[in-house]
């Protein structure tokens, strides 16, 4: 006869304000098999925990149900508590009275009744729980970092400096990401490349880091500590070992009028190109969609000029399979194409540009070598209007969130513009100034007070061209929303930050969840901001949500420390929630009839045949057998098994039926 202990948590008032906890514990006390039932203000607190410890000992409980918050929150806590008092942790279950009851229902009798139902269901389940013992699996001490922007570089360096191996994969021909495109960085105005390029070089030369640029992660299989990743190394059409990066090929290339991605279309590149001078590695790639040879079958100018004979037109994409123990996703963000903003005329008027384009114009390595010039005619604009929230906080355009970085970079843009063009006027149309960060608000104040940037609180309704000027129609909401019309030479749109292209596909390949805007989801919004719901996979930087550089770097280091922690032991213990094929006494041995339907059901190929042999070695029966190392515990096989010979530990038929039946008892 089982002796279950039930512990009802008030969670301060989070639960008790709508659920009558006392009544719940009284009701549970009457359930047959319940030896102990109490309610307490904070079960997760120290006194709360010792309450459980003592009860386990005094009443020698055979099972525990903690009715509190979601198991996704505190299951580990309370299972640990049980273990500490000698009760197998898997004899402890949590009833979710907070997220799925008290927070979603009003204070009324039916809410308490539901609470009682929920607890009794788990009491019935836990009665049937069996002691389980963690499985130990070896850890492959190599981390895979996807994305070579500042976040990826930071994570890779931190892990590598902790003497662990790292494989850094970057989709573009060079690492560096968006940060390498920036001019100067807020709030200190230090040159972005000056602080970034040393890191890029360090990452490329680090003995513990293997760098794959112009490469993408195709698939990921396995589980924490034991992943297998397939990397597609796209054909550069250049032999990286031979290439010296002299640049003769690019000079020789006849196709020179290709809009440069790095210069956001404001500059041109050739068909064989290095994205930017400080690129790492400093080796070119051939853009096969533009190269005359690949399009027309002749040209090869680059090959003839290459002193190292490094050009390889016949190079193929390579696939590399790597074993890794953990993954850091740092694939970054992108900026929303503003063509969906017809009222601002982006794409119609050359001098209406995005913030990222303005970064290139301000950058010393940019198309104008850092001089502020209009894309249309190369003249120096005397009046620039900066429009914040161009796409962000705009449900009508499908983006209701705040992109977070625009307020700061817009202030920076206006400031740098005034520094470079002294007699210039800079106007900023804004809705709110969100400058929450160390030295951030001071920075914005400086732009306003010292550099005399004109801040106008209001959204712009329309931008159109009238005899060579861009007419910006805005309103000043601090003056009764009076219409304001500015004749500008140039307009800079602080466009929304959006998830990078391919984010969805990657999330699906990695089996991590993502939100409605295709940003990757963290395991807990507050307490597990760098973990994903998939053990062993962590997030860094703007792939999780719009972030500035300090935040991205911070999160990258956090992710790195998670990886290092994981690698600190040679083995890691996995929850024993796995499928098992039953064994019975001879002559049956197992109720498994060997239909092997489960083979096809298993997503992990974790199930194989096992021969049961007699003393003479003759095969008596072939049955299914689960590899505990590979099984992830989804239980699909269990639902498939006709003879009910395979069952999932922790979610057995016995347990689940009992749980459900209790609801209608």
């Amino acid at each position, binding site marked *: 006869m089982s002796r279950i202990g039930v512990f009802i948590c008030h969670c301060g008032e989070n639960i008790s304000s709508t659920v009558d906890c006392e009544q719940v514990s009284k009701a549970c006390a009457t359930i047959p098999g319940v030896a102990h039932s109490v309610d307490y203000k904070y079960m997760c607190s120290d006194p709360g925990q010792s309450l459980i410890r003592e009860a386990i000992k005094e009443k020698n409980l055979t099972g525990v149900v903690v009715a509190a918050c979601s198991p996704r929150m505190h299951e580990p806590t309370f299972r640990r508590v049980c273990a500490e008092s000698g009760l197998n942790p898997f004899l402890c279950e949590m009833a979710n009275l907070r997220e799925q009851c008290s927070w979603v229902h009003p204070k009324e009798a039916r809410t308490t009744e539901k609470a009682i139902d929920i607890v009794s269901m788990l009491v019935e389940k836990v009665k049937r729980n069996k002691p389980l013992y963690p499985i130990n699996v070896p850890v492959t001490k190599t981390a895979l970092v996807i994305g070579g922007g500042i976040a990826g570089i930071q994570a890779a360096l931190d892990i590598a400096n902790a003497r662990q191996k790292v494989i850094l994969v970057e989709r573009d021909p060079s690492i560096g990401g968006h940060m390498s495109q920036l001019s100067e960085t807020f709030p200190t105005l230090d040159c972005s490349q000056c602080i970034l390029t040393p890191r890029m070089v360090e990452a490329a030369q680090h003995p513990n880091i293997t760098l794959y640029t112009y490469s993408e992660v195709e698939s990921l299989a396995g589980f924490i500590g034991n992943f297998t990743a397939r990397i597609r190394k796209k054909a550069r059409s250049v032999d990286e070992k031979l290439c010296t990066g002299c640049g003769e090929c690019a000079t020789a290339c006849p196709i020179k009028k290709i809009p440069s991605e790095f210069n956001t279309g404001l500059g041109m590149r050739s068909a064989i190109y290095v994205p930017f001078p400080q690129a790492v590695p400093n080796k070119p790639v051939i853009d096969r969609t533009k190269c005359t040879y690949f399009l027309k079958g002749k040209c090869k100018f680059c090959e003839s000029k290459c002193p190292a004979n490094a050009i390889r037109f016949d190079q193929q994409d390579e696939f590399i399979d790597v074993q890794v123990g953990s993954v850091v996703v740092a694939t970054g963000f992108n900026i929303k194409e503003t063509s969906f903003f017809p009222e601002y005329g982006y794409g119609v008027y050359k001098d209406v540009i995005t913030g990222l384009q303005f970064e290139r114009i301000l950058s010393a390595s940019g198309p104008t070598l850092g001089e502020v010039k209009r894309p249309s005619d190369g003249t120096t604009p005397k009046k620039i209007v900066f429009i914040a929230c161009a796409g962000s*906080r705009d*449900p009508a355009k499908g983006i209701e969130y705040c992109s977070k970085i625009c307020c700061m970079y817009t202030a920076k843009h206006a400031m740098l513009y005034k520094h470079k063009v002294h007699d210039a006027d800079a106007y900023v149309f804004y809705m709110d100034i969100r400058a929450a960060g160390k030295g951030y608000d001071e920075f914005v104040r400086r732009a306003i007070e010292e550099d005399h940037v004109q801040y106008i609180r209001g*959204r*712009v*309704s329309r931008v159109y061209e009238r005899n060579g000027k861009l007419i910006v129609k805005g309103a000043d*909401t601090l003056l*009764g*929303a*009076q*219409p304001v019309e500015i004749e500008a030479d140039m307009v800079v749109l602080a466009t929304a930050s959006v998830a990078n292209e391919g984010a969805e596909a990657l999330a699906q390949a990695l089996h991590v969840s993502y939100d409605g805007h295709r940003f990757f989801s963290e395991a807990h919004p507050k307490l597990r901001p760098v973990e994903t719901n998939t053990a062993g996979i962590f997030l860094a930087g703007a792939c999780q949500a719009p972030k500035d550089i300090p935040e991205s770097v911070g999160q990258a280091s956090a992710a790195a420390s998670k990886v290092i922690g994981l690698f600190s032991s040679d083995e890691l213990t996995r929850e024993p929630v796995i499928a098992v094929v039953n064994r019975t006494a001879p002559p049956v041995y197992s109720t498994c009839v060997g239909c092997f339907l489960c083979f096809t059901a298993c997503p992990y190929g974790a199930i194989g045949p096992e021969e049961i042999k007699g003393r003479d070695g003759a095969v008596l029966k072939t049955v299914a057998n689960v590899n505990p190392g590979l099984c992830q515990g989804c239980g699909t096989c269990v639902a498939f098994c006709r003879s009910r010979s395979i069952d999932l530990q922790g979610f057995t038929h016995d347990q689940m039926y009992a749980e459900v039946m209790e609801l209608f008892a």
Partner: protein
Amino acid sequence: MSTLQHHNSTNTLASFVLDRTSVSVSRCYQCGKCSAGCPAATEMDLTPSVILRHLQREVPASDAAVLSSYTIWLCLSCQTCVARCPMEVDLPAVMDALRSESVRQKKVHPQAKDILAFHRSFLNTIERFGRLWEIGLIAEYKMRTWHLLQDVLVAPAMFLRGKLALLPERVKGRKDTRRIFDVTRSKEGHHS
């Protein structure tokens, strides 16, 4: 400086607007894009976004300010604001509702009397004839407003170019039209 007493929000103008147009004024976050693009904004006493701000306050003083504003009569229903509003607030619909309420509460802005007079003359002619009879309209409008000299230059020129019919056309369908007026007047009414 007025003190805010937030009274029960069921009898506020905002709730009337919600009921009539199913537009929730709390959607508006006061970015001012509507005012920025409004062709009539410069002529208005309260710009469109300020009208919404007043509605958001849900206090009698603000409600009164809105109903007695010139703005609601200057709205051209050009739909520019709603086409560009990031929060998809249907301002033209709100303006329509506010106008009829302003008439009902007899709060019509003095300068707006002409505009109201025009609308009424217009509706009267079509109520009478089923269709618009421009001379009839202008005549009645002049009677109501005493703007006797307005358009004296345009009208004859129009006539000479055959753009003005001296006699109204009498449509068979006009009985229907009248019925529509009677029925809808009893519902919302107050348009003549």
